């Protein structure tokens, strides 16, 4: 175990230097980087916000099932199937039919089925039905139908969340899908996430609807306007936010009031122009997420495709509203189900205390090893320093994220890394008692300790891997440093330290060696 071929020595030190050099990349000048690799600081160290958002597709499913009502009725009528008792439930439709067999053929037909499309990728129809009694059936979304609705809502939400966050202009945001219903948002450096949370908390479904004088009319709902007035608003939507191409905050010249001016696309301009021409003198309600923003009088037809929303805004509100309108409406409301925000000063404090405890722990361990093993303590300590350099180097190569528990993992590695060398040295001590040849004693010591060192480290590695798989955020950072630390520990103990030991042992020949 003490004989190294030249090529082996070369490989060992080459690996060590290459990996260690990467650790230096973290100290290079930001403007003048040779290789753009460095360890990223986790949100708990650099400050920032972590948000976990969840979509709620219940409303969407309700809406979607309602949108099936007319097509289904039309399908039945066109094919002379009589029906009655048509009921719209929250997530299903129920009705009585006189000819279920005929309905079944139409409903489950793959060709040209607009009512109940066949989802090729799932090999399933969008809708399914079950018989409640002889004549009555209930129609609902199939498992994959629901999944399709959910997935498209999630994708769309991620896109809109990204647009809104980009528009606010935070640095390097991370926006990722997490599972089937969640979106993970990381905003490094953000001190106060309340504005972004407020912006993400609004679906921003905007529509323009006429104010009706007649409150008994069918298709009217009562909403409360911005100044507390109860208004009857027609359910018929003249135009919705989808037709907006742009929205910007502006100051109205007459009274310095902040407003939002918007530009419509061609279709929107046509709809808006027609509606305003036909209804001059009436009031037009601008409804955002079911609340009236304002309900101005239509003084003259607006055909230019440009308009303005006023509603006693502050300039900030006008800015936020235009941002929301520009980015488009979210398909479902988003709920913040988890939030972790760390202020920048706490992050700095954490880095400071983390580094301090690392240095102190390191010095204590080094001093203890020197005291215990003298010359071989030096070797163990050289291995320990090499270990740290390599650990930081590997973290840099992987561009891993360093968290506060991650720093704890490095300190713990320092404490536990010497174990490999301790196991070996203690074994050699024992061998020296019975073995006459010193070289032989060292050799057997390394050989015999090898299995124990491996067994002992693999158990910790198992714990680190499981922690990595199940941990989240900061804890994952701990698992990473602990796991990589074990690998670098094995390398430094079994290659570097062994080579250094062999140099000493082979050079002193069979003179007295104390360990």
């Amino acid at each position, binding site marked *: 175990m003490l004989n190294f071929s030249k090529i082996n020595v070369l490989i060992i030190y080459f690996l060590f230097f290459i990996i260690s050099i990467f650790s230096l990349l973290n100290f290079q000048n930001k403007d003048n980087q040779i290789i753009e690799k460095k360890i990223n600081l986790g949100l708990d160290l650099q400050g920032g916000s972590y948000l976990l958002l969840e979509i709620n597709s219940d409303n969407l499913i309700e809406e979607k099932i309602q949108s099936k009502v007319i097509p289904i009725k039309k399908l039945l009528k066109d094919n002379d199937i009589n029906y009655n008792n048509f009921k719209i439930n929250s997530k299903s439709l129920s009705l009585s039919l006189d000819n279920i067999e005929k309905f079944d053929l139409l409903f489950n037909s793959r060709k040209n089925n607009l009512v109940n499309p066949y989802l090729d990728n799932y090999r399933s129809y969008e809708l399914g039905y079950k018989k409640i009694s002889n004549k009555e059936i209930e129609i609902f979304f199939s498992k994959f139908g629901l999944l399709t609705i959910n997935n498209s809502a999630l994708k769309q939400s991620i896109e809109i969340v990204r647009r809104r966050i980009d528009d606010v202009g935070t640095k390097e945001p991370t926006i990722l899908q997490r599972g089937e219903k969640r979106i993970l948002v990381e905003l490094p450096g953000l001190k106060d996430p309340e504005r972004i949370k407020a912006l993400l908390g609004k679906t921003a479904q905007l529509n323009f609807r006429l104010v009706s004088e007649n409150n008994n009319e069918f298709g009217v709902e009562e909403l409360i306007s911005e100044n507390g007035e109860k208004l009857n608003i027609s359910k018929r939507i003249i135009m919705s936010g989808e037709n907006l191409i742009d929205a910007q905050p502006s100051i109205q010249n007459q009274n310095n009031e902040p407003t939002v001016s918007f530009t419509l696309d061609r279709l929107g301009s046509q709809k808006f122009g027609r509606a305003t021409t036909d209804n001059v003198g009436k009031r037009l309600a601008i409804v955002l997420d079911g609340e009236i923003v304002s309900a101005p009088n239509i003084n003259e037809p607006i055909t230019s495709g440009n308009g303005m929303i006023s509603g006693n805004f502050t300039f900030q509100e006008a800015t936020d509203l235009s941002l929301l309108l520009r980015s488009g409406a979210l398909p479902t409301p988003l709920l913040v*189900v988890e939030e972790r925000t760390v202020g920048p000063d706490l992050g700095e404090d954490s880095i400071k205390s983390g580094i301090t405890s690392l240095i102190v722990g390191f010095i204590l361990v080094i001093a203890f090893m020197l005291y215990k093993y003298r010359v071989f303590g030096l070797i163990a300590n050289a291995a320990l320093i090499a270990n740290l350099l390599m650990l930081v180097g590997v973290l840099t190569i992987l561009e891993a994220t360093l968290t506060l528990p991650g720093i704890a993992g490095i300190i713990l590695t320092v404490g536990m890394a010497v*174990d490999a060398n301790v196991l070996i040295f203690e074994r050699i001590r024992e061998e020296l008692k019975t073995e006459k040849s010193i070289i032989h004693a060292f050799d057997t010591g390394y050989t015999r300790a090898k299995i124990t060192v491996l*067994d002992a480290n693999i158990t910790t590695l198992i714990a680190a891997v499981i922690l990595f798989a199940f*941990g*989240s955020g900061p804890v994952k950072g701990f698992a990473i440093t602990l796991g990589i630390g074990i690998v670098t520990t094995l390398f430094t103990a079994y290659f570097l330290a062994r080579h250094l030991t062999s140099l000493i042992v082979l050079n002193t020949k069979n003179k007295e060696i104390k360990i």
Partner: protein
Amino acid sequence: MTNFNFSSKFKYANILSLILFALSVILIFFKGLNYGIDFKGGTLIELRSNNIEAALIRDTLKNMNLGDVNVKKFGKEGDFLIKVEQKEDNNKLIPEIKKNLSESLNSEVNFRRVENVGPKVSAELLQSGIIAISLSLAAMLFYIWVRFEWQFSIGSIVALFHDVIITLGIFSLLSLEINLSIIAAVLTIVGYSMNDTVVIYDRIRENLGKYHKLDISNIANLSINETLSRTIITSVTTLLALFSIFILGGEILRGFSFAMILGVLIGTYSSIFVASPILKFFKVSYKTLEKEEEKIVP
């Protein structure tokens, strides 16, 4: 080499372990664990401000009717940690609390840390924590079973249970908070304790092959003594590192490093006084190893 007679103390140590284990189980079941917001859900706010009293913060929050509110000093003078229980997701809660506190404290308030975990997420985090610990125990069981014989596997798992339960028992006794980093600590303890046990087991296996005439008590005794120096040195260096984190690493790492310190102490004890006696209980001898070899060799 030391020559302590460990095996003569096995009986007393086992009685002590059983009592501690039983007390811990009783504590965990009846007093319960003090789950942090990671596992219980709720809101945590760490704030820094000059010249304010905990009572003022408490009064302000009490007026908001938030339910269970906990305010305590946290580290330096002027630093406070606020915990608010929360039964359902409410996105408006944090801005409201911040606004009210800023207004009533009447001085610059620095919100250093805000965490909010909804009920669904906290339930999931708890579940994945339990799965992670169970899985790590199972993985250790399997690893030792592959590397050693089944008697060793059971011995090491009993020692691990012993360590985890007693650590949690002490956390329950002292009402210390269980959060995500404590789960990380427990998993690391599992790894560390296993590491310690494996070193002694390796030596026991080796000595069983070497000295056919010694019985398991003597073999265990010999092996523990032979590895004792290593056991102590490694525990000391690990504890040096951990105390450094505990004292200098700041408030956030305090619970984590405390759990680890407990775990290292208990884990070291258990590999000597729990894992080894179990081999005696199973009457492990060199014949156990031979049987195993016959199984593998052909």
